[in-house]
């Protein structure tokens, strides 16, 4: 066999491939991949939708009570409590916004190295989100405490507005509400931190592999 015959033998593969593809198997693999991607997208969208609904609901609720506070000329303590709870909501919104991670670079060329760089940029982005676990936790904490404080303000101001004779009767309720709030907050925080640590470990391994691959590709130059 000479060089030309070798090329001829090689190129014959394109017209008569040495294997055939099991169409059912590849379709199954694609369906599984498609289902996985869809699950991820749906879960992300559900999270966003939930965030928007809760956020909008809270904004409407807060606006309503601020209007009532202003028109009724309430006690300064309630105005301060309302202000603090609104500040906490703002802090929750800020930390959530800051915890979203930096946008990944999108403009890459067509070379193999650029393809690896594109994958690396995506992993860097995912890592930048996973590494900032303290921010979503701070956001969740601020949101929960803000909600509690705001509800207390509304509840107590209602008691006063209706001249409640036994304001201490709601004290136990607020105590248990606060306990549940703190327990839920601590539990959610640890849960989030654990999940983010696991994700971070996986992403760091992938990032290391991609960097090695990129270094190997660059070293060929």
């Amino acid at each position, binding site marked *: 066999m*000479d060089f030309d015959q070798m090329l001829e*033998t090689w190129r014959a593969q*394109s017209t008569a491939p040495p294997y055939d593809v099991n169409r059912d*198997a590849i379709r199954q693999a694609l369906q599984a991949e498609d289902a996985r991607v869809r699950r991820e997208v749906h879960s992300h969208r559900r999270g966003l939708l939930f965030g928007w609904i809760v956020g909008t609901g809270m904004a409407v609720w807060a606006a309503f009570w601020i209007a009532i506070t202003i028109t009724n000329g309430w006690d300064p303590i309630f105005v301060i409590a309302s202000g603090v709870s609104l500040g906490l909501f703002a802090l929750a919104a800020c930390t959530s916004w800051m915890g979203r991670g930096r946008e990944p670079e999108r403009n890459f060329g*067509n070379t*193999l190295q650029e393809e*690896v760089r594109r994958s690396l940029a995506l992993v860097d982005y995912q890592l930048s989100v996973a590494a900032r676990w303290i921010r979503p936790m701070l956001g969740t904490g601020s949101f929960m405490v803000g909600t509690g404080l705001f509800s207390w303000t509304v509840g107590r101001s209602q008691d006063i507005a209706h001249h409640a004779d036994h304001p201490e009767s709601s004290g136990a309720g607020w105590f248990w509400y606060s306990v549940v709030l703190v327990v839920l907050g601590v539990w959610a925080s640890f849960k989030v931190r654990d999940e983010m640590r696991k994700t971070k470990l996986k992403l760091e391994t992938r990032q290391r592999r991609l960097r090695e691959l990129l270094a*190997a*590709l660059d070293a060929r130059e």
Partner: protein
Amino acid sequence: MQEAERNRVFESWIDEHKAILFKVARVYGDTHSDREDLFQEIALQVWHSVEAYRGDCSPPTWIYRVALNTALAWRRRERRHGHGRQDLEAATGLLIAPPGRDPRLDWIYERIAELDEANRSLALLMLDGFSYREMSQILGLGESNVGMRINRIKAALAAQLAKEEHHGL
């Protein structure tokens, strides 16, 4: 891009260019189950890449780029985590091998497998008739570097051919 459109493009790419996937899987996979695993991985990545394809290079060039990137990443992953994997566990029945195969083709693949990982990519592209310019675009190497490497690969293959001919291949 609509889901149906993406699947249509993917199906047409697989129909027309499946040989690229076979070649890359054959060159970078050591055993049959490795090749099946890698073939599936490449097919999935090609399917994902359909949306990112902007038409600024030909589909074979694009598919080669995705396939080689996937294969190189797969090799590194397998080297670390794939030890001791049982062939039966990995076999997916994705590739159907016909009964008779040209033994000269196996010989070519064996020679390519003797090259280092980066030069395997170049050998594949060279044998498929890509120009130096296209190879440099796909692999991100300078054209002169590609030319130098291709000359070495050609010389090595020619020497092997001469040796085999001497022994009566």
